[in-house]
């Protein structure tokens, strides 16, 4: 099967004053694949992810969705199929779980709102908590609500910016499970991380950024292989 490129960015540059955070990065997200974007702190991973999420404007370069440049009407079309998850939960503390989901469903203009909300709530085990204030939830429950919120609009493109930061091992395992499940349901996923742990096993491709440049890109073979490549660029103990 020929691999289809869903989102692509070409020669992205980003300046913060004199400092150049991204120095001409090309990146392709293949349809229904999980891509891992790795690199040290300050390598420009999060900046790139924010640019892909249209939260930050690139200084130079283009972002393409389905081979068309994202602007005008395509902007909203792209945002509709976009999911973005970071270590922040993106939920209103003083609204109930249901109100939170309802509000974002409204913003995304989801047509079969009621069923969709019920569906994500039951799949994340939130139904019994639906009328409780989200701020009172435990960390794990908030994480689930956050995921439910992200998947509400059935995003085909998922950008995960350090989603594993600050998670305890069991939550980490759950998230990795969910990600690999999502993959089977035709989603294109970009994971930004700087940790090499068990979660990398689900990757199809991985890309390494160093000081704003793409230094490596390959399909995923094994965790060991990835570790060795990673340490080649950033130093550390070879295994």
């Amino acid at each position: 099967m020929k691999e289809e490129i869903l989102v692509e960015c070409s020669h992205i540059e980003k300046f913060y004053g004199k400092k150049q955070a991204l120095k001409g990065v090309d990146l392709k997200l293949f349809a229904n694949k999980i891509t891992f974007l790795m690199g040290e702190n300050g390598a420009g991973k999060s900046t790139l992810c924010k640019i892909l999420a249209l939260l930050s404007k690139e200084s130079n370069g283009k972002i393409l969705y389905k081979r068309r440049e994202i602007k005008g009407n395509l902007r909203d079309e792209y945002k509709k199929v976009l999911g973005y998850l970071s270590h922040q939960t993106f939920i209103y503390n003083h609204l109930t779980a249901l109100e939170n989901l309802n509000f974002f469903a409204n913003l995304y203009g989801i047509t079969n709102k009621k069923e969709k909300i019920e569906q994500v709530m039951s799949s994340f085990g939130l139904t019994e908590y639906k009328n409780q204030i989200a701020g009172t939830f435990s960390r794990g429950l908030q994480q689930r609500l956050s995921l439910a919120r992200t998947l509400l609009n059935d995003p085909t493109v998922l950008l995960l910016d350090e989603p594993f930061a600050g998670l305890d091992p069991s939550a980490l395992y759950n998230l990795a499970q969910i990600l690999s499940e999502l993959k089977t349901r035709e989603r294109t996923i970009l994971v930004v991380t700087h940790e090499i742990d068990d979660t990398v096993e689900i990757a199809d491709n991985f890309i390494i950024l160093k000081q704003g440049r793409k230094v490596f890109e390959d399909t995923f073979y094994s965790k060991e292989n990835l570790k060795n490549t990673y340490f080649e660029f950033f130093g550390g103990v070879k295994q």
Partner: protein
Amino acid sequence: MILKKLLRKWATLFSILALFTNILALLMVFFYAPTEVQMGEVQKIFYYHVPCAIASYFMVFISFVFSIAFLVKKDEKYDIWAYAGAEVGLVFILCVLVSGPIWGKAAWGKWWVWEPRLTTFLIIFLIYFSYILVRIFGKQDTKTLKVASVFSIIGFLDVPLVNRAVYWWGSIVHPKSVSLEPQMKLTFFVSLLSVIILSLSFLFWRVSVDERVIDND
């Protein structure tokens, strides 16, 4: 990219120009322009007071234009100019606020009179001082630059409204634009030119010392 070398060249050129025009202006103010009958010597402040006011408007206008450019393009080279414009503008606003009371003391016997144009400048001073405070508080992160540029735009648009408000509020009137004698007019235009050139040289120097300007050799 803004090149430091080129900027320095312009700055030097304008500084030299400013030096000569200012000497000429000073000579004209004291030896060419006739002394005003009612006010006497102190009226000569007018030749710097008004040009400083015009120069400060010019500088904050530059800040306004480059702030818009920065917000649209998100390119920091515009922000450098916007920042410099506001800062140099503030210097000239201060000149107005200092020269005004000196004149006022002679005219009305009081240092500060809540006279419309001067009060307008006091408010403009408050606006642009806040602008500088934001820059000092926030260092150089992108967030601060955005805050500052939005503020510069809003602040500039606010100026005419401030001016109207102050006019209706106060009752003391600014000296009516007395019909100047031709020699006075000529002197005024020479000193206006000299102050504008001076403000531009300040602007170029200020931009060239911004740490974000690229040093090329």
